[in-house]
């Protein structure tokens, strides 16, 4: 039932649309959260009950009855094919399905919630989505008279079934524009009206949530002419979560690794990996480039840590502590490679943080530090670190190659 969002871009002058699927790092709401928002914005959604544990099933049976659809709540597409959706006809079946779904993972994601829904008599499935057009500075409306699991295939094989319209974000989308779009899909009568109203409301969701994407796929027309969103996809924008405190708190809920969670809490971007060299830098691009170098010399990254800009004493200390914990937890870690570029801030804070962390260092893994950037800051950093026993390089190639010696020594 679930499918990735699609973001169609036109690169060739001959208008061949290519399909690019992007997963930004922002929070994707779970289906039930999105449906609660849809309901707030008066988009019709099926009768549903959230199931967190076995006993919630009773309420679902009472309110929804059978047949009942049970859907694993995971923030990714393709859950249907991965066994995350079950249709059950009676209570015993439902109990079994609930147990199975809650016990298992979907593509590595634990299932903490199920959504129990009425099974609808579906006449047809449509699609509507609002997504930002990064090149044009506009929300783009994308709609299709066919939707559901095959939306990408439809987009690829029958692009004429898909209609798109860019909207000036300062002007918004007006109801009559929704009607003109619905007309382009060839809709008529009540379906025409219902679809254009849903589209208008979906735009309100996009704006109201400061979302990067709001999507209904499929938008279902039942045999008795009702229009319901049987799935929801809303991708929130990390940068505007401050105005949506309800979701701000939930941001980290999918982080399973405890070090990754600690990183998130401390405001640094830590990614746990399986290799032997831990990599840290004050910038994501630089850290990625370092990872690539590690690979290049025949090792593999054990973790990635981007401290972000404006490196404070505390951030430096927290970052190193995190890496030491990683080295402690994971015996495979052979070395820590940290690169700091001094751009606008003097090294004092960073050095203090580093020294604080070193005092508590309880693992016997070498720390190789590369300092680069504004010359007077680099010199000052080397000076301030003279009394420590860490190895300091001012050249990346040398620093990276030093790792080899360290490891062969051990």
């Amino acid at each position, binding site marked *: 039932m679930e499918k990735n969002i699609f973001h169609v871009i036109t690169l060739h002058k001959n208008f061949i649309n290519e399909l690019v699927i992007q997963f930004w790092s922002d929070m994707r709401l779970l289906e039930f959260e999105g449906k609660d928002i849809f309901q707030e914005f008066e988009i019709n959604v099926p009768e549903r009950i959230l199931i967190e544990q076995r006993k919630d099933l009773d309420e679902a049976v009472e309110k929804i009855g059978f047949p009942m659809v049970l859907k694993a709540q995971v923030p990714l597409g393709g859950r249907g094919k991965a066994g995350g959706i079950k249709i059950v006809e009676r209570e015993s079946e439902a109990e079994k399905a609930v147990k199975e779904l809650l016990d298992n993972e979907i593509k590595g994601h634990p299932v903490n919630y199920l959504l129990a829904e009425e099974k609808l008599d579906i006449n047809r499935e449509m699609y509507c989505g609002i997504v*930002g057009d990064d090149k044009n500075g506009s929300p783009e409306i994308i709609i299709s008279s066919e939707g559901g699991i095959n939306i990408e295939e439809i987009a690829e094989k029958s692009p004429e079934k898909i209609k798109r319209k860019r909207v000036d*974000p300062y002007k918004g989308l007006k109801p009559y524009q929704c009607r003109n779009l619905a007309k382009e899909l060839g809709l008529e009568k009540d379906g025409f009206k219902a679809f254009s109203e849903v589209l208008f409301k979906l735009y309100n969701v996009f704006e109201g949530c400061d979302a990067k994407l709001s999507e209904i796929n499929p938008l279902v027309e039942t045999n008795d002419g009702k229009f319901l969103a049987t799935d929801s996809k809303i991708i929130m924008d990390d940068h505007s979560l401050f105005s949506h405190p309800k979701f701000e708190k939930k941001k980290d809920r999918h982080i399973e690794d405890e070090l990754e969670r600690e990183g998130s809490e401390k405001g640094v971007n830590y990614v746990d990996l399986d290799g032997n060299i831990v990599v840290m830098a004050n910038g994501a691009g630089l850290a990625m480039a370092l990872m690539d170098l590690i690979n290049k010399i025949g090792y593999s990254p054990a973790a990635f840590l981007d401290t*972000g800009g404006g490196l404070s004493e505390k951030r430096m200390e927290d970052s190193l502590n995190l890496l030491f914990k990683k080295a402690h937890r994971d015996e495979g870690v052979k070395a820590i490679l940290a690169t700091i570029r001094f751009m*606008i801030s003097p090294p004092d804070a960073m050095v203090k943080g580093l020294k604080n962390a070193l005092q508590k260092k309880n693992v016997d893994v070498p720390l190789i530090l590369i300092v*680069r950037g504004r010359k007077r800051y680099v010199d000052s950093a080397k000076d301030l670190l003279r009394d420590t026993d860490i190895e300091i390089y001012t050249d990346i190639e040398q620093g990276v190659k030093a790792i080899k010696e360290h490891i062969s020594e051990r």
Partner: protein
Amino acid sequence: MGMLIDSRSKVLVQGITGRLGKKQTKLMLEYGTDIVAGVTPGKGGETIHGVPVYDTVQESLEHHDIEISTFYVPAPSVEDAVNEAIEAGIEFGVIISDWVPYQDEMKIKRAALNSEKFRYIGPNTPGIAIPDEIALGMLSSPSVMTDGNVAIVSRSGTLTDEIAEELTERGIGQSVVMGLGGDPIVGTRMVEAVEMLEKDDETEVIVLVGEIGGTMEEEASEFIKENGTKPVVSFLAGRSAPKQKQMGHAGAIVRGVKGTIKSKIRAFEGAGVEVAETLWEIPDIVEKHL
């Protein structure tokens, strides 16, 4: 990079009294950048490192000729500050502020396109600099840059700076060092930067620094393939990034036809752009073209 900035450019700093604005104003002045005014609402009448502060952009323009503004205002106010600058007649913006809400970035882009005059780089850009002429933003590279004929255009912050230093260490000077900004919606896309550099007499070789995610590299490749006349060298960060793991707020994990490192390498190579495998290979390849 005469089209956007040069040593004669008169610069405004919006958000000059903030911690970062204040600090960077000092560094930019040290480099010789002609900062003639700053703006912070409610702080009109103060001076920061000798620069007079005004309450509004319009007021600053009544007292000075200004073409460029750099933005250090807090994220939720950036969209408003940029519109203020556009309406007052500023022509080029360098939006340093990061963490700008996505829909605000969309609006900034639209406001610029609607204005038909205002151009900008960022948000979340480290800035732009021309050796010995002007530095805008937080790049440290001015301290290590030398005048030359290699342009660096980069999606990454520290990496922009790093590559400039790598080139300087190898005795290769730069015509311009330019960060596009790490957010999904940026004012100047890679392809637009390449188009400008094609026309820039000071630039002989272009270095493009990309990373996983987005489609800017593919887009730029299309242009280079059809219209490029200058040698282009590229570097891509994130070759070893595992799928489904997020590598930071600048980055994005991408699956599909485009956006992957593979698709970007294929695009670059198809356009005759040599792709450096490591940071230290970049100067080697650039040197061949000088």
